């Protein structure tokens, strides 16, 4: 079999020196499914973005269909036969399936008018080619997520894509829907399409993959035929050995006071989980991307309405219907998507840090004591070693790690009783990660209750006192003590489960 794609010695360094990819090789044969496996931050998405021309690589070369290729943006990649399947993003809900499939090249009659009959006929044919049972006349808004995904795949296929990239395609799908997707993938293979399949669900490697490449911390660990490896081997390769947590303060350094601040009650299908939040403790929420961690913490914070998540304070049910109520109660939330939901990009570092606690600096009338504000902000700014040109620099110019520090600094300035960290270490460099870990432990030892959500299981295992594990939107376990270790968490969240 010949190679359709070879990426050689790809290195990508982000501003600030963070090596997202370090000399990675990757290749793809005609008609194969090559699984890209790795934890978050391992470099999977960066590798794809380099391929699609979203990120410019710092070194290495890309050989596409036997010729060296320069791809500088996703459109070029698309024209060269590479398609990425995004989740629900790139379809037009108010158009029909057929119209979506042919959106940029409607069949025309007399050069100006859309040939409706031909449009529907060709769409029907394309769907049939892939054994997909969807009515081409249906409006996309009436389709569920799984069907939309299949429409996207059909679109890519009918455009003549030779390489289709699927990024965590099953994270929001039910089990029968996943089976359907796997069948479509098999059909695609038969038609000679090559697929890069990104996942961190181990079981899927064996279900769809021909070969698997494991990435870890921006480096390639190895490429293996799937029948040469098993789940345990892959797990070991993915995690590797890490020294990251040796510098983090001991869990044992616990606060003296341990007081229940809030109780989270989650109604699962079969069971009701009562999860107390204690001051001085770090409560972990573990689960892969798409497992519903953000939805859960947002529901706690009042940013998302959910009937199955209740909060109890001193025996009384409390409801936060807006985040401002939660903030008044004494909760702070550090969002996962810090650029959009966390930071005010066009405002200064100072304003971003003081915004949540601005009333603390008001002395009389409504006037802010700017001296006091600056003094307090500067203290935290220095303590966290935030690298900005000055306190007045706009946050958008900061590197990822420094942005995250600003977002953390905001809540350090406010000092709520509970702080929720939602994936606080995603996309930031190692030293900053360690700093964030230390901040979290420090906060706990000072009596703050921390809720820490992460898809990096080693973080949960090393930082948390207790943890709950989520899988596909459902809470499946509550672990503490000796059970709280990385391999248990990984097995619970990703490994084989009888029901799947």
């Amino acid at each position: 079999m010949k190679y359709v794609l070879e990426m050689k010695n790809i290195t990508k360094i982000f501003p600030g020196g963070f090596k997202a990819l370090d000399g990675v090789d990757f290749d793809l044969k005609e008609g194969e499914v090559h699984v890209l496996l790795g934890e978050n931050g391992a470099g999977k998405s960066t590798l794809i973005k380099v391929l699609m021309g979203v990120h410019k690589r710092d070194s290495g070369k890309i050989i596409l269909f036997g010729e060296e290729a320069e791809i500088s943006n996703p459109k070029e990649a698309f024209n060269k036969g590479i398609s990425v399947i995004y989740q629900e993003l790139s379809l037009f809900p108010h158009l029909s399936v057929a119209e979506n499939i042919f959106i940029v090249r409607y069949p025309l009659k007399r050069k100006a008018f859309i040939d409706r009959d031909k449009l529907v006929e060709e769409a029907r044919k394309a769907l049939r080619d892939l054994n997909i049972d969807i009515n081409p006349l249906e409006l996309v808004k009436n389709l569920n997520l799984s069907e939309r995904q299949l429409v996207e795949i059909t679109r890519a296929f009918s455009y003549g894509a030779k390489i289709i990239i699927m990024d965590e395609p099953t994270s929001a799908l039910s089990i029968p829907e996943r089976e359907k997707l796997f069948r479509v993938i098999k059909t695609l293979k038969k038609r000679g399409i090559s697929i890069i399949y990104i996942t961190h669900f181990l079981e899927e490697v064996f279900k769809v993959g021909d070969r698997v490449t494991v990435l870890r911390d921006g480096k390639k660990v190895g490429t293996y035929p799937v029948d040469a490896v098993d789940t345990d081997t892959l797990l070991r390769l993915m995690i590797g050995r890490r020294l990251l947590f040796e510098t983090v303060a001991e869990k044992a350094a616990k606060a003296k006071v341990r007081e229940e601040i809030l109780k989270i009650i989650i109604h699962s299908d079969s069971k009701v989980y009562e999860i107390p939040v204690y001051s001085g403790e770090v409560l972990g929420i573990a689960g892969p991307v798409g497992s519903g961690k953000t939805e859960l913490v947002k529901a706690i914070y009042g940013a998302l309405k959910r009937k199955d998540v209740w909060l109890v304070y001193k025996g009384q049910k409390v409801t936060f219907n807006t985040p401002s109520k939660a903030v008044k109660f004494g909760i702070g939330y550090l969002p996962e998507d810090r650029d959009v939901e966390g930071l005010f990009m066009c405002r200064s570092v100072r304003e971003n840090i003081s915004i949540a606690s601005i009333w603390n600096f008001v002395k009389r009338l409504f006037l802010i004591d700017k001296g006091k504000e600056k003094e307090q902000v500067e203290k935290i700014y220095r303590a966290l070693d935030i690298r900005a040109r000055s306190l007045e620099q706009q946050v958008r110019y900061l590197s990822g790690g420094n942005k995250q520090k600003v977002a953390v600094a905001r809540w350090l300035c406010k000092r709520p009783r509970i702080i929720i960290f939602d994936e606080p270490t995603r996309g930031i460099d190692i030293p900053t990660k360690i700093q964030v870990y230390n901040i979290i432990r420090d906060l706990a030892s000072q009596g703050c209750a921390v809720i820490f959500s992460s898809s990096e299981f080693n973080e949960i295992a090393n930082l948390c006192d207790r943890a709950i594990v989520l899988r596909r939107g459902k809470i499946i376990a509550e672990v503490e003590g000796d059970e709280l270790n990385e391999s248990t968490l990984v097995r619970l969240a990703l490994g084989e489960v009888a029901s799947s």
Partner: protein
Amino acid sequence: MSEGQKSQISLALEYIGRYSALVAFSIVFAIFIALTPKIIAPYNLLIILHQVTVFAILGAGMTPVIITGRIDLSVGSTLALSSCILGLALIEWKLGLIAAVILAVLAGLAVGLVNGLLIAKLKVPFFLTTVGTMYAVRGLALILMGGVAKSLRDFPQLRYLSAGWIYVIPLPLILIAITYILMDILLNNTPMGRYIYAIGSSFDAAKLVGISIDKYIILAYALSGLTAGIAGVYMSSRVMAASPIIGTLYELYAIAAVALGGTSLFGGEGSVRGTLIGSLTLTIISNGCHLLGISPYLEYVVVGLVIVSMVALDVRIRYLRGEYIEKA
């Protein structure tokens, strides 16, 4: 390009962005001084002051609305309503001048509050809300006056508001100074101001940081209504009449003043100081064209060109800074 050069360029862009209003003003002013030195004659400067006052006052209230990333198209109509309420209060209801002025200003505030409530609480899109109030309020003003303007020459003290002096300082200058100082303090030195910037910078982040967004959107529109009310009183004093048809299209002048002042129409950035400079730029173009004998029709073209080039510059700077703007 080295890291150092890159950061110097980004620094330069930041400064150009920050002082773009001043740059535009200086260029426009310099051009007109070169073309017609009369523009800086003392009597003409006084004319400029009288002309700039309405734009400046409307712009001061429009600024917080635009900083939240929204817009208020109703201020021209609100200005007229305020003028009519002033006239009715003086002529029909026989109120004293001070009471009539207060009532007129409150009428403006009321329109602002209605806008704010519709947008924040009923979630009516801001553009349509203020187009709606633009029509409704203009209609209300016309109904109140039976469709005609009434002279206020029987109330000579009213003239003082626009033509009076305190020692050597003309009253409009004091009016502008007070409005701008208060608005500047509100935006920069109070939590409310911080929240207004935050909302414009990122609606989602503002919500997640615990800001009660509705309250501050209502506040922004209330401020805009309030200044429209003040502008209405000032205009009435200038023309010594209560008129339901004044202020037509003034919302666009106010928006132009804000935009020329370097406040981003995407929200989150800007200042009333900029708006003051922006309204001056706008007035100087209009006054300068007049002095040069350029036809008023061509004057519209010049104003339009300056506004578009200014916004184009803003967009260009954002593009260079790496913020891609996809919506047109």
